[in-house]
């Protein structure tokens, strides 16, 4: 099982859990596995066409899946997948 690190803004959809174990051989399968466990998360990660939203980046280890094999990037049982959203705070 791979480990997905959930960013703070999305933790309200995972009962405040910061890491979730997911199943699947690819990024897509693991993210779908994640969304099945937490259905409220789904619409915040995927758009109406089922594509990953543009304000979210998915990383395998320290690498952006967009320069690997995108959603078909292979995920190993000991892989760490990060969901990185844009956050904007800093002044107030």
């Amino acid at each position: 099982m791979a480990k997905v690190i959930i960013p703070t803004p999305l933790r309200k959809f995972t009962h405040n859990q910061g890491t979730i174990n997911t199943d699947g051989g690819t990024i897509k399968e693991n993210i779908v596995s994640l969304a099945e466990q937490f259905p409220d998360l789904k619409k915040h990660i995927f758009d109406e066409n089922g594509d990953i939203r543009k304000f979210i980046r998915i990383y395998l280890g320290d690498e952006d899946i967009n320069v690997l094999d995108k959603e078909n990037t292979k995920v190993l049982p000991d892989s760490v997948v990060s969901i990185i959203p844009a956050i904007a705070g800093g002044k107030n």
Partner: protein
Amino acid sequence: MNTVTFSKEELERYSRHLIIPEFNIEGQRKLKSARVLVVGTGGLGSPLLLYLTAAGVGTIGILDFDVVDDSNLQRQVLFSVDDVGNPKVEAAKKRLVGLNPHVNFIVHNIMLTSDNALDIIKDYDLVADGTDNFPTRYLVNDACVILGKPNVYASIFRFEGQVSVFNYKGGPHYRDLFPSPPPPGLVPSCAEGGVIGVLPGIIGSLQANEVLKILSGIGDTLSGRLFLFDALTFETRTLKVHKNPETPEIKELIDYDQFCGLNLNGKANKEDVKEITVEELKALQDSKEEYQLIDVREAYEYDICNLEGELIPLGAILDSVEKIASNKKVIVHCRSGARSATAITQLERKYNFDNLYNLKGGILAWADRIDTSMAKY
């Protein structure tokens, strides 16, 4: 470069820099001849300004339009109780001049906009972005790309921080990482979502370190990398950031509120949402007219202060339509009036409500004008 000289006082002040072999007096000269603009004088801006000033950056621009508020003091270590109510840029300058009289400060008591950003930023070598909202993030980025200035970026939310260096020596910029912002309401600001007070101190200090490295030319910067820090778990990650061939070329500044889906707050759409003032709500309370009051904030905000409205957070509003009356006046409120306007627009678009009124200025206005004993946050 050698025309930059130092007084005896300056040499003594910067001696701990001068004796670092790879930094030395050349690094200090580069700092002194540099011009840095710090956008946002808040959580991140506080450590940034303090350390850049202490380190001896020659010219520092301080940009903010806000005044110091009681709720700032939990993390904005530039300010004191005496500063509350005063313009942030003036309070900051007063503190910083006391810290290092050898620095030239330029105060911009103004909101950065598409109309003034290029004119302000063009006079600086580098921008450090410590703002608190997506429209300004994209504005700062695009202006830096157009003008060819490095953008030292940091951002925080609750326990989580991000740091990177954008648009430096042909490296990626903010839009390469995040082509478009999240929809309004998903990622709350610190004012809505909170932030642990020490986090901006940590993240803003890392940001200041990147500024000093770029100015002095030493070390490996975070260009092409995104540093992440989780203060709760003490997990850190450094991820790679690449230039994205699909990122459109930035040729001019745009309407960033519209780009970020925030035109609800802009002039164009504000008239579309019916409004009620806090005085009118008070009169309504005192009358016998029936109405419903809905609070679209989060439960933890409700616990700080409330108007005894029915709590339906913005994210759940469309799924809670059965709780919203259609046969009487419904007043919708949040902290400042922004989220409630979004809620009303969503409800009107999807369910054709015509009886919804936005409480202008939100519960903050109520605390200011109706019940001054109410806690503001």
